[in-house]
């Protein structure tokens, strides 16, 4: 972007602008996500084969020990298995042999590690899709070992003793395995959009976060910054006093929010269920803390990610039971496995697709692997029987009434009485009335619905304006779905990120939405926003928004 104003170095250097994706303020030192180590361009002249081999082996063993230590320490479900499998590669005698043989050819140690890994990489890639996952583990071992040999910083999420602001180019789902919410107080990424993994992760942890902050690349390790996740602003060059002041004021704000209680309703008493989005059994505990009425979206992907094979029915029953028990009799809406697109899984037999967002994802994966869905429904039914939670199930990426019927019939057969469909595809919104002849309820996923309605990749930070949930075309589809629900006497909720916006929540209610499901950290603000307006005012706000006017 060009500017007609002259340069304003003093001021411009102080503030960086991005897109705020999780409100809240936090100040602390920057810790940079470790980049992949760079191999030296030229080869050194003198090579001491013996010492080089010993150095490479020592680095490899340290990598293995580090991974094993993290595997033993992690509390994140599934993470230990991933880390242990990676450690096993670092201890592989064949890898060791290949490194020694490269060093014997006068290749310096870091390059020898790279060359040895490359050989196995090619071998695994040649074997096809199922093995591709292991290539990431192999790359991780190489990067960590090479970084150690070259004295470069460790790649990945940094480890620090004191709390820090994590600054990264972008975060991948796998990075969440090593993200410790005790240490990370805010997130800033150069890339990513409002519905990227970084944003969703930040909201689920209640961490102030900014994405698409193009100048964040200029932030230095250890530099003190203040992150305002609501305004999307990073303030740099602050003093330690200013930092602790900002954190103290934020603490007061959070305490005030924690005092907000009770069911959601407008100023004139129209009820709107306020629910939470959770991604693990542990998240269920948050629901009671913020006094929400239940869970409107229980994402079950975390059970399946980073695994080579599907979790067993028993394993699933145990996890679902733990989540249901934490509900204390409240309602919980479980979304069945939403894999595919940006979340590929090896056991679903997803071959390379030219356009994965339009391919085998969500409910569609059950066309090829019906047993994965059947196992999940069986496990959910068993867990439901073991607890007193009110369990609803819904399928992601439903496009047609026939698909809705197939899924709801299957769920009912498994003994799950309330089964519905997500509305993420424009076709489903346009035909919401047909879907509701079979589905017991609908839930609108505004992130994907925006992506498919505006034809804008939800990960594309540059297209953030098209993914804006205020787009009238998106709101039109919400209105059509809500009206179909009203006509059928069935509930229509919103569980996308739009529901977490205090400004948009009254609009959604005015469009006829009956429940809003959001990150636990957003419940108090949305509750307060609804309590300030009447249902008639919500409808006026909705009419304004449909006309393309948004409040300023």
């Amino acid at each position, binding site marked *: 972007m060009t500017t007609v104003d002259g340069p304003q170095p003093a001021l411009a250097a102080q503030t960086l602008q991005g897109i705020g994706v999780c409100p809240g303020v936090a100040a602390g030192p920057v810790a940079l996500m470790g980049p992949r180590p760079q191999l030296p361009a030229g080869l050194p002249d003198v090579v001491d084969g013996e010492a080089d081999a010993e150095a490479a082996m020592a680095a490899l063993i340290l990598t293995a020990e580090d991974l094993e230590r993290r595997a033993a320490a992690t509390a994140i479900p599934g993470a230990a*298995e991933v880390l242990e*499998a990676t450690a096993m590669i670092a201890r592989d*005698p064949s890898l060791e042999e290949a490194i020694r043989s490269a060093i014997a050819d006068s290749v310096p140690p870091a390059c020898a590690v790279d060359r040895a890994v490359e050989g196995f990489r090619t071998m695994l890639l040649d074997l096809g899709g199922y*093995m591709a996952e292991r290539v990431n583990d*192999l790359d991780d071992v190489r990067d960590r070992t090479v970084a150690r040999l070259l004295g470069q910083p460790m790649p990945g999420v940094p480890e620090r003793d004191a709390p820090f602001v994590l600054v990264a180019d972008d975060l991948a789902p796998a990075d969440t395995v090593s993200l410790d919410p005790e240490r990370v107080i805010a997130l800033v990424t150069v890339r990513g959009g409002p519905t990227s993994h970084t944003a969703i992760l930040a909201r689920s942890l209640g961490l102030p976060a900014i994405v698409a902050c193009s100048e964040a690349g200029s932030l230095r390790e250890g530099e003190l910054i203040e992150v305002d996740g609501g305004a999307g602003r990073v303030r740099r060059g602050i003093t330690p006093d200013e930092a602790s002041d900002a954190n103290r004021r934020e603490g007061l704000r959070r305490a005030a929010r924690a005092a907000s209680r009770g069911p959601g309703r407008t100023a004139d008493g129209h009820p709107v269920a306020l629910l939470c989005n959770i991604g693990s059994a542990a998240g269920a505990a948050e629901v009671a803390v913020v006094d929400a009425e239940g869970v409107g979206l229980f994402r079950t992907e975390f059970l399946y990610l980073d695994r080579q*094979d599907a979790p067993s029915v*028993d394993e699933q029953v145990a996890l679902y039971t733990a989540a249901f028990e934490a509900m204390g009799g409240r309602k919980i809406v479980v979304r069945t496995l939403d894999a595919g697109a940006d979340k590929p899984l090896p056991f679903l037999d997803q071959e390379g697709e030219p356009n994965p967002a339009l391919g085998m994802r969500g409910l569609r994966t059950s066309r090829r692997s019906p047993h994965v869905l059947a196992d999940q429904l069986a496990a959910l039914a068993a867990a439901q029987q073991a607890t007193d939670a009110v369990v609803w199930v819904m399928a992601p990426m439903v496009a047609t009434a026939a698909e809705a019927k197939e899924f709801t019939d299957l769920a009912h057969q498994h003994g799950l009485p309330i089964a519905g469909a997500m509305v993420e595809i424009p076709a489903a919104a346009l035909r919401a009335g047909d879907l509701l002849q079979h589905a017991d309820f609908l839930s609108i996923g505004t992130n994907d619905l925006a992506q498919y309605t505006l034809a804008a990749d939800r990960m594309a930070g540059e297209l953030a304006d098209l993914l804006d949930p205020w787009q009238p075309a998106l709101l039109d589809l919400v209105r059509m779905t809500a009206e179909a629900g009203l006509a059928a006497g069935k509930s229509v909720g919103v569980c996308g990120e739009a529901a977490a916006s205090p400004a948009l929540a009254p609009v959604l209610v005015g469009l006829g939405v009956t429940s809003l499901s959001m990150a636990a950290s957003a419940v108090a603000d949305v509750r307060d926003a609804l309590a300030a307006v009447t249902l008639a005012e919500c409808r006026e706000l909705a009419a304004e928004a449909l006309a393309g006017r948004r409040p300023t």
Partner: protein
Amino acid sequence: MALREVVVGSRVGLHARPAALFVKAVAEQPVKMTIRKGDGAPVDARSILRVLALGAKNGDTVVLEADGDGADEALEAVARVVAEDHDDPA
């Protein structure tokens, strides 16, 4: 040289967790061991990367070979891991 032929019992084949369990079991044995699929070249059974690269699927026959004291017992123990279905929910 002691030799054992085993049919892979795991429904996902000798991949992922079953492969990791296999390599762990091999590492616990006092003797060196190789594994090959059919008439393929034998590879070091302690190498997770080589074992994965065999691409042994459910129902494939693999051949384990070991030498020295305790070879028979070692093969017996490891063969059990190969034959078992680790993904059976029951």
